[in-house]
Structures are given as C-alpha cells and as structure tokens.
C-alpha cells in the first residue's frame, strides 16, 4: 500500500498494463535533452545564454507533462514559465550590473554546496515518486476525472476531460488556495511598485 493510495483510498492506475513503449522512448529522449540543456545552464559563461538554455529545460518539462496526459499542466508550463518567468529572469539580469557578455568569473567557489543540495533534493523527489506510484503507468485513454466532484454547495456532473478534472479540484477543495494565490500575486506586485518608485 503506497502513500497516495493510502491517503486517498484510490487504486493506482494501470498497474497491470503493458509498458507503453513509444511513451517510454519519448520520455528518454526528452530527459536526455533536458539533462544536456540543464548542464549547459550551469556551465555557460554568459548569463543570457543560461536563461535561453533554461527555456530548453522548461520546454522539455512541458513536453514531459503532455506525454503524461497532463495537457493543462503542460500548457501552463509554456505560458507561465517560458512566457513570463523567463521574461522576469531576463529583466532581472538587465536590471543588475551583471555583464551581458562572457564573464569568466561566473562560477563561485562554493558551488559544491549547491551540488549537495541538488543531490539531496533529487534523492527526496525520486524516493517520493517511486514510493508513491510504484508500478503505476500512464493510463491508455483512461481519463483521470474524479467521480462527480463536489463543487460549491452541490455535486456537479462528472467531466470527461483532464482539464475539467483540474477545474473541479481548483473550484472545489482548492478554492481557498486559489484566492490566496491571487492575494500573493497582488502582494508581489505592490512590493515591486514600492521598490521601483522614485519618490
């Protein structure tokens, strides 16, 4: 009995299904591309090049999400991360005194501290993922929709799409976090205005 199944009382999908070969091959190719691009992010001598390599990593993650039938998460990855967060990072680079050209002093001497953190984080995530999903596989055309979600003060009819299932979760159990997210974004912008104002 794994953590996810124990917590929610649901059976893991596709435990007995055969391995989806095309999906596994696609995952391996994308993973290799992402690892290569991630290495280039930390080894390139140019900050702007690092940001552009980060775009490759994030696009690979979006493709992985689509491979896992999580279309909404994949499109969100493209819109928010590639569209907005990279813009923020590039503006951050342009606002600071960082050199846009090649900078031989880009590496710091305590980089191995970051490497230790990365290895520990990788271990934790790998353990959590393997322990949670074990033999679960991508369902073949099986939808993730929950049976008749509870939204608002009554039950709404069940949805056929995964995006609809996300919506049921967001507007059902996770409505308060959604509104808190709105407050958080507002606070971030008010803070930025306070920092950027001249007077």
């Amino acid at each position, binding site marked *: 009995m794994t953590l996810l199944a124990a917590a929610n009382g649901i059976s893991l999908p596709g435990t007995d299904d055969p391995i*989806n070969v*095309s*999906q596994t091959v696609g995952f391996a190719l994308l993973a290799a591309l992402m690892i290569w691009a991630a290495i280039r992010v930390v080894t390139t001598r140019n900050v702007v090049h690092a940001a552009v390599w980060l775009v490759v990593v994030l696009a690979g993650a979006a493709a992985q999400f*689509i*491979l896992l*039938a999580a*279309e*909404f998460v994949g*499109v*969100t990855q493209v*819109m*928010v991360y590639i*569209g*907005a*967060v990279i*813009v*923020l990072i590039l*503006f*951050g680079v*342009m*606002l*600071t*005194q960082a*050199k*846009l*050209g090649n900078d031989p002093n880009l590496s710091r001497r305590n980089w191995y501290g970051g490497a230790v953190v990365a290895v520990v984080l990788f271990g934790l995530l790998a353990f959590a993922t393997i322990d949670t999903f074990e033999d679960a596989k*991508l*369902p*073949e*055309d099986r939808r993730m929709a929950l049976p008749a979600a509870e*939204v*608002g*003060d009554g039950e*709404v*009819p069940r*949805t056929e*799409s995964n*995006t*609809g299932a*996300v*919506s*049921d979760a*967001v*507007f059902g159990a996770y*409505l308060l976090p*959604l*509104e808190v*997210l*709105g*407050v958080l*974004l*507002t606070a*971030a*912008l*008010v803070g*930025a*205005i306070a*920092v*950027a*104002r001249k007077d």
Partner: protein
Amino acid sequence: MSDLLRSYLTVFIFGAVAVGLVGAVLGLGSFLRPKRPRPEKLIAYESGVDPVGEGWTQAEIRYYIFALLFVVFDVEAVFLFPYATRAEAYGWYGVGAMALFIGILTLTILEAWRKKVLRWS
C-alpha cells in the same frame, strides 16, 4: 499509443518538419556558398555604420513592474482555461469564485494606476 499522444504526434511532426526545413536550407546554404571570413564581416551591421561602444546598458527598474504585471495576468489567464471548460456545470457559484479571483488581481492594476507607475514620464 493512446489517442491523446497520437493527436500530439501531429504537433511533433509539424515541429520536426519546421526544424528540419530550416536546418536543410541553412545547411545547403553553408554547403554551397563561398566561405572567406574576415573580421570586418563579423561585426554587427546597421545602416552601413560601424557600431560604437557596447550594446549593453542597464535597464530601468520600472520595466520590471510591467514584466510582473504580465506575470500576474498570465496566471489569471491560466486559471480561466480550466474554468472555461466547466463554466456551465458550475453556474453562478463559478462566476462568483472567478469574479473574486479576478477582483483581487484587478487590485494590482488599480494600485499601479494610483501610484502612477503606468504613466511614462
């Protein structure tokens, strides 16, 4: 392969053809053209005048506010998509929940307007 992944195969083929076409045209060009590099040929070209100084200047911080405003309304748009797929099922409850979310985010643009950061002086 599931139907969902097969439908995305079209996207993959489209992208592969686009990348392959650009690569083929550029590769053919580099294969056919004469190659005699000189330092003058490698500098940036603009209206026939040689560039002076560097292209790098420090940007103003107020650009950051516009970037952050973009992030805020990007996130708002992202949450509109799942709502749009289920809006009919939710009825007025969904309208109220989404109106509250958009209302909170609209405070950002009101704050920016009130502090006059939208005005470019």
